[in-house]
């Protein structure tokens, strides 16, 4: 039994050639995992060095932030982040709708693209997660693309595979 599996997290990226990262940070009142403007270099880590941003990007990852093996908990965090819910959580439908519309307006005004990715990796034969419909509907409404990257472990390598060139 592999205790480290499943592994799951979600990412949010807001992209656009004219994107000014500070504007997104100010709007969402959140510090991104990484952000850069088009043509700007950003640090991709100790070994990764400096990488050139070919478009503007504001990126948030739940990995290391949300401590849950349930993908939907990670998507809840992303949704809350988008709607400022981390600070203004409300069960009030009117406030929730207003937040959604405000965010959509911000994105449309600047012609930004939103992509939400879901990563999940489980043991061989384990059941893949199901994204809650409410998340799909809200992300669809704000024009966000959703990308699912689900995978499972592979059987141990055979002798022939071990010598693969």
């Amino acid at each position, binding site marked *: 039994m592999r205790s*480290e599996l499943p592994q799951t997290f979600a*990412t949010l990226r807001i992209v656009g050639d004219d994107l000014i990262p500070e504007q997104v940070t100010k709007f969402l009142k959140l510090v991104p995992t990484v952000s850069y403007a088009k043509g700007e270099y950003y640090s*991709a880590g*100790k070994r990764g060095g400096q990488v050139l941003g070919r478009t503007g990007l504001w990126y948030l*990852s739940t990995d290391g932030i949300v401590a849950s093996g349930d993908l939907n908990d990670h998507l809840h965090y992303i949704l809350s982040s988008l709607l400022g819910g981390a600070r203004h959580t409300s069960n009030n439908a009117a406030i929730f709708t207003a937040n959604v519309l405000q965010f959509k307006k911000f994105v449309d005004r600047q012609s930004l693209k939103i*992509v939400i990715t879901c990563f999940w990796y489980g043991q061989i034969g384990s059941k893949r997660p199901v994204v809650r419909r409410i998340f799909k509907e809200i992300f669809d409404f704000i024009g966000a693309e959703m990308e699912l990257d689900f*995978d499972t472990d592979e059987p141990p390598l055979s002798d022939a595979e071990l010598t693969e060139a």
Partner: protein
Amino acid sequence: MATLSRVIWNKIRNPTKWVSEQLGIERWQLRKALHKIKARNNLGSTDRIEIYEDGNVRDEFGEHIGNVFDEI
């Protein structure tokens, strides 16, 4: 960033266990690292990349986009 090491993966599909073993890591660590590197560089999970034996990753145009070992 100059990369002199050998390419160990450049196919469209997800890298196999053989690739993670070349890097000395678990396959889930490799998949997780690549997902983050791609997302951070505005690439989709099906976009082709090249993985080098030192962990460096390049996109299909040969541009350096990160290193697997920074993500573990």
